[in-house]
């Protein structure tokens, strides 16, 4: 059994999805989906333990030997990502039943869980697999279900946002497909481990350059890296709240993982950063992303929009850490992936609770909520402080590591810019806090109740995780550091 964990990780949510259709009873389906996601989460914990103690796990699908058959390869990086994705998915699902009651028509509830599980399958698959073409397939599984999930939003804008995401997402995925095809043409293999050994022989050919370009642009589209981020704000803002919470915390992380996997493992460090001036380009785009997206966030009147733009800015931090291309920089990026999942998960779940009670998340309707929904608003405050990077929250940990990585390289000006970027986060988080706590409600006769327990439990689980991992950084830092070192150390 323990040998088959890597495939069980992916196959449990995959098999659970069609079974949901058969159960077809709202509450039952919810419990079942929760069970499947929870199982995936426990498997990811086991996998992480196994990887940390005994190293890389290689699983051959159907017993076919590696370069010919499909291989699932779990190293520290994958295991870390699997933990983030399945963990967030499980926590978010706890609130799903209550939240979609108000946002999605009753007859569509089963489909919601089916799509949710398929999307989870796709993300776990992308991360678990060691085969380049498999990545494309899982990418499309997760994206197709994501488009359908987003289209389930209440407003008609959700349809339009989903359509735009479909166009951009498909172009991105097809770019990745072209890149993989060109790699296959040059090396005759799709196994990423094998690719990393064979690509250096042909590294100086135009075909490999082109394939690298296609893969990177494709991944960056999925990543919503500035300036390819245009699909993200509307998709996040109009999707059902639970979907937003799930995707904001996981989807872009998967794309960051792909970026790291392709540049560090497949193409190799020297090719990605020496042959091609990726460093300067990504540093510039990352910084621009931080500033443009944070500034745009300040001017949003819809709080979901506001935090969606803030997500793009946070991706900027990950990109900056990535482009430092040292162990310290990469550690900062991996840490920020983990931490950002915690903060955005908490914030968007809290927004889901606001939608449940108030009906929408227009900033003006936040007036007085600080007193009416104290626990939910406190969660947004702590999540917001974490976004800014206040000490004792996870946000501080990853910003600290990022700054040390930059200073280590002697890049003071960039470190200063990062700090300035955090100041912008103060502004947009403050706007929400100000309205919620210091403005009287528009209509005092309307009594808004605190969110139900089914929201508060998952929200506060994440909030407490935000603080816990901000103080006790052993787990996150140790794993992130080990993953970063293995990417540099065993560099192919």
């Amino acid at each position, binding site marked *: 059994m323990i040998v088959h964990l890597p495939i069980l990780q992916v196959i449990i949510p995959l098999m659970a999805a069609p079974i949901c259709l058969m159960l077809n009873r709202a509450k039952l389906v919810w419990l079942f989906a929760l069970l499947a996601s929870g199982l995936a989460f426990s498997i990811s914990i086991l996998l992480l333990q196994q990887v940390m103690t005994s190293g890389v796990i290689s699983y051959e699908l159907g017993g076919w030997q590696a370069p010919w058959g499909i291989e699932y390869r779990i190293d520290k990086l994958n295991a870390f990502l699997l933990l983030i994705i399945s963990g967030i998915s499980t926590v978010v699902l706890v609130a799903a039943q209550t939240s979609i009651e108000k946002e999605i028509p009753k007859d569509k509830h089963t489909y919601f869980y089916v799509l949710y599980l398929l999307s989870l399958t796709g993300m776990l698959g992308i991360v678990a697999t060691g085969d380049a*073409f498999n990545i*494309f*397939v899982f990418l*499309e599984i997760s994206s*197709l279900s994501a*488009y*359908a999930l987003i*289209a389930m939003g209440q407003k*008609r*804008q959700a*349809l*339009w946002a*989903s*359509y735009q995401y*479909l*166009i951009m997402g*498909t*172009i991105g995925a*097809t770019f990745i*497909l*072209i890149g993989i*095809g060109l790699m*296959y*043409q040059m090396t005759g293999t799709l196994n990423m481990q094998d690719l990393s050994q064979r690509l250096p022989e042909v590294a100086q050919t135009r075909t490999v350059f082109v394939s690298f370009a296609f893969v990177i642009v494709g991944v960056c589209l999925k990543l919503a890296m500035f300036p390819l981020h245009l699909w993200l704000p509307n998709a996040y803002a109009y999707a059902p709240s639970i979907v937003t919470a799930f995707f904001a915390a996981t989807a872009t992380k998967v794309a960051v993982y792909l970026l790291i996997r392709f540049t560090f493992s497949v193409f190799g460090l020297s090719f990605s950063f020496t042959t091609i001036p990726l460093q300067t380009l990504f540093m510039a785009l990352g910084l621009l992303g931080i500033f443009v997206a944070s500034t745009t966030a300040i001017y949003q*009147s819809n709080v979901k929009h506001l935090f969606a733009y803030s997500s793009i800015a946070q991706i900027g931090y990950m990109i900056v850490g990535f482009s430092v291309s040292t162990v310290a920089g990469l550690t900062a990026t991996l840490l920020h992936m983990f931490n950002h999942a915690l903060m955005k998960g908490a914030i968007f779940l809290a927004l889901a609770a606001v939608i449940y009670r108030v009906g929408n998340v227009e900033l*003006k309707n936040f007036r007085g909520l600080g007193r009416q929904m104290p626990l939910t608003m406190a969660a947004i405050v702590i999540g917001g402080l974490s976004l800014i990077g206040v000490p004792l929250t996870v946000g501080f940990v990853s910003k600290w590591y990022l700054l040390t990585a930059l200073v280590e390289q002697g890049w003071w000006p960039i470190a200063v810019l990062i700090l300035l970027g955090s100041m912008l986060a103060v502004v947009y988080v403050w706007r929400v806090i100000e309205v919620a706590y210091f403005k009287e409600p*528009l209509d005092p006769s309307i009594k808004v109740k605190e969110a139900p327990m089914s929201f508060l439990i998952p929200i506060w689980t994440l909030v407490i995780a935000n603080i816990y991992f901000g103080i006790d950084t052993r787990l996150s830092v140790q794993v992130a550091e080990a993953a970063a070192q293995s990417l540099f150390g065993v560099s192919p």
Partner: protein
Amino acid sequence: MLIGLFNDWIVVILMMIGLYIVIAHGNLIKKLIGLTIFQTSVFIFYISMAKVDGGTAPILADGITQYSNPLPHVLILTAIVVGIATTALGLSLVVRIKETYNSIEEEEIQQQDNEEQLSMNKAEENA
């Protein structure tokens, strides 16, 4: 050069046509058609990559020593399925967009969204 890379030329031309349609056209159905052409060009690229000069279908038979590479064909079978799913989902989204916006032109949809936003802002000012 031109003849030898005939397939590649076709691939690139189709790819550019597809991408151009996606970007340049405002009609949602046309965009999807462009997307499909774009994807199809990639299918052709994979399939022609697998062709070995003088090779036949990879079925064991007497007297045949050279086979084309079957792997890309299999990959593309999967990619075709994905492509169909994408097109189907895209088209069903267009149907629902038509139902709610009563238009499938990008400009008109965006205009409606903007007007809605404006009227919301106005209502806010009045309140």
